[in-house]
């Protein structure tokens, strides 16, 4: 098990290096210039050129990448913080430390000042949504899969298909129309600021509802499929034939086996809930990680995009590792080498 985890960790590091380089290379092809975007459309070309030089954007790709990696590992001082450049870039942590993601050209602040509070906000949203999605979809999926083809199964399945097929921007607007405009029960946006007279919890209701509707439908379908398959297995039929009540058959024989496949799917939802919620965050003006990544990408803020990519990848690979270990615990036929 330990060897397995160590190997996974090594492959995580390799993936991070490869992905971070790819991000650098891909942004190279984006048709925009950070210096122009920083100074705006009304700056003269020679002003843009001066800033371009100052930001070191004219260096070759490989030079910029190794410089960025050196700054991240704390081996090099961040050159953008050099007071001689007159950029006013200053990090209270210093210009040379491990985990220095550099300076965000979009926010004109150290990436570490920008990224963590947004990740925290998204983690709150994701955490609440996850805490609702998992028990809800397990309960509904098991209920539906227990008696395949029953009225309950059909109802739950139709709910699952419908809720998954409505995109988040549409369900967001529907819910706002009903609960904000018509009923006036809830606030329409979630700036996470109690000053508007709406408590924070009330600002979380609609974005969480949108995520639950979108995501739970999918997980319900997965659990239902797995449960239905297990319920048709010979050992379940044997259990019924020896006279065991439905409850005992489900709890003791079916459930654990039915959870093996959905377990991975459920853990994968964590990735989606952290880095894939950009639409929900936009619709509700939620100050989270997804909206930040979108803004950074549109601006070409390489330091912020890199940091976000590394964090999202780490979360993805970590959940994958947990799911592999969990898989082995649930299913003794699988061993980790």
């Amino acid at each position: 098990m330990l060897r397995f985890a160590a190997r996974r960790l090594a492959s995580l590091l390799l993936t991070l290096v490869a992905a971070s380089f790819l991000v650098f290379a891909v942004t190279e092809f984006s048709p925009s210039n950070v210096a122009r975007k920083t100074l705006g459309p009304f700056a003269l070309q020679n002003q843009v050129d001066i800033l371009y030089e100052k930001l070191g954007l004219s260096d070759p790709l490989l030079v910029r990448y190794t410089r960025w990696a050196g700054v991240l590992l704390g081996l090099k001082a961040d050159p953008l913080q050099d007071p001689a450049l007159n950029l006013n870039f200053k990090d209270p942590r210093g210009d040379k430390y491990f985990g220095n993601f550099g300076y965000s050209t979009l926010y004109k602040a150290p990436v570490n000042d920008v990224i963590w509070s947004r990740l925290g906000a998204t983690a709150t949203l994701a955490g609440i949504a996850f805490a609702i999605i998992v028990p809800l979809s397990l309960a509904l999926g098991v209920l539906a899969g227990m008696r395949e083809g029953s009225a309950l199964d059909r109802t739950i399945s139709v709910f699952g298909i419908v809720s998954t097929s409505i995109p988040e921007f549409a369900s967001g607007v529907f819910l706002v129309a009903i609960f904000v405009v018509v009923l006036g029960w809830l606030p329409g946006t979630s700036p996470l600021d109690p000053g508007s007279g709406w408590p924070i919890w009330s600002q979380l209701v609609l974005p969480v509802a949108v995520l639950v509707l979108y995501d739970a439908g999918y997980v319900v379908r997965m659990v239902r499929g797995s449960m239905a398959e297990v319920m048709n297995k010979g050992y379940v039929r044997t259990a019924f034939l020896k006279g065991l009540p439905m409850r005992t058959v489900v709890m003791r024989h079916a459930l654990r086996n039915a959870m093996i496949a959905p377990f991975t799917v459920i853990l994968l939802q964590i990735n989606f809930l952290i880095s894939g919620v950009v639409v929900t965050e936009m619709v509700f003006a939620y100050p989270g990680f997804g909206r930040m990544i979108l803004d950074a990408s549109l601006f070409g803020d390489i330091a912020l995009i890199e940091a976000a990519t590394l964090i999202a990848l780490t979360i993805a690979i970590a959940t994958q590792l947990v799911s592999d270990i969990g898989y082995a615990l649930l299913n003794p036929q699988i061993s980790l080498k």
Partner: protein
Amino acid sequence: MTNDIHDQHIRTLGRQLADGSMNRREFVRFATLLGMAAPAAYAAAGLAAPTAARAQSMPKGGVLRIGTRVKEIKSPHTYSWGGYDSNISRQVLEYLTFTDEKGVTGPGLFEKWSVSPDLKTWTFNVRKGVKWHNGQEFTADHVIWNLKRVLDPEVGSSMIGLMKGYLLDDTTVNGKASTKIWDANAIEKVDDHTVRINCKLPQVAVPEHFFHYPMAIMHPDSKGVFQVGSVGTGPFTLTEFDLGKKAVLKAQKGYWGGDAFIDTMEQIDIGDDASAAIAALASKQLHGLVFADPGQYDALKALPHLAFYDVPTAETGVIRMRCDAKPFDNPKVRKAMRLAIDPEVVLKVALRGLGVTGDHHHCSPAHPDYAAIPPMKRDVAAAKKLLAEAGYANGISAEIIVPNDHAWFQTQAEACIEMWKEAGITIKLSPMPGAAYWDVWTKVPMGTTIWYHRPLSIMCLGLAYRTGVPWNESGYSNKEFDEILTQAEGTIDLAKRKELVAKLETIMQEDGPLVQPVFRSTFTFMDKRVKGFSMHPTNYMFGWKMGLEA
């Protein structure tokens, strides 16, 4: 101020007011621009001066919450998007002059000014009794520090583009093109409360340039950095700033213009999603928006607790063609492009009627120096004839690049594409992210560019169509046009200037590089409890004018 009445220019204006060649509103606009105090100008024109919002009846106290984008604000002198960043610092840092909602430029931190007959020497009086928030007196030295700073190429302020024509010379630094102030005495301190600007060319719009959003007056100790607690001369201080979330501004006691009515102004980031702003107003999380988009109009209009505010502007989406790219290098083709368009259709489809039609010359009825020349009527047959004469009897094909950050640009392009088809002109629409467009805006053969409101039509024409200027995105060059434009910029007599502008407009219609069907009105919605608000053509917010009913 009475001396100003004897000033040659003011006398000219007075004569034009008397003989009816200038209306009262235009008189006030030009007289204040030349340094006449607004109350005196209103009185001379026989108009009642607008009652300042300092009425007793204004509600006091409260927290006003406005929806916007809370972007980076550290460097006011290099701001690039005035509607967002400067609206936060604007409450703390003031400007030397003040251009109001009606386009009248009057005193700000400069109390009054006068100009020489050749429009080259401007003498400005610094307002006395203004104190920085740290108690220090505001003087000419502070003004000069700010002016020199924005004109330093190292700082990177877009004021350079605006003032280059009359205050800067081209130069070379380390082999690279740069600029420097044209004369050591160009920005001159006369005494502690007088500053003189010595221009190398006549310029009528100097006071209006001082209200351009990067020209915020900062304390020299700030070294050009604006942040929480920054010292300004304005009615508020910035007490909290959370990038991408919100900015909190608290009223500052003892403001020279009289204390603000509200206690606090909060500017809340609501992102770029149009529905988020609607939802926030519907649930009363916000009292209003800095500005609204035509796409939000119907939904916001349906909310009974909101009031609608709009103002006609010279803001427009110019469809411009590179004069050095085929087939647009032929003036007949460019004119055919204009003749194939019915501006009324574009106004209805793209702006839902919230604006006025343009006549393809970039001069707006919102400009005081606008000249009403006969509109260019749609004439498909004439367009086809011109194309044939240009050697394109079978029509032309081209691609139009449309940045996607102004939703109505695409609708405008779609409407035009349909109309062009009838004249045998096939145009392919290619949308592009707004931010990426600014890398190519002066290069693509055909594109749509946002041109924001500017107070005078000669400012728009001088920035966009004069030979060789940095923002001449179409590469347009016409000697006759340049000469008349220079003449117009040095002509204070409005009737004479309008005659010159009429000539410029006609050249644009006949030869120009643009299709420009509409000017939009800027508009917004505010809670009916908000008092004292009026829409500014450049979306500026003035917290000290606004009150909030409990």
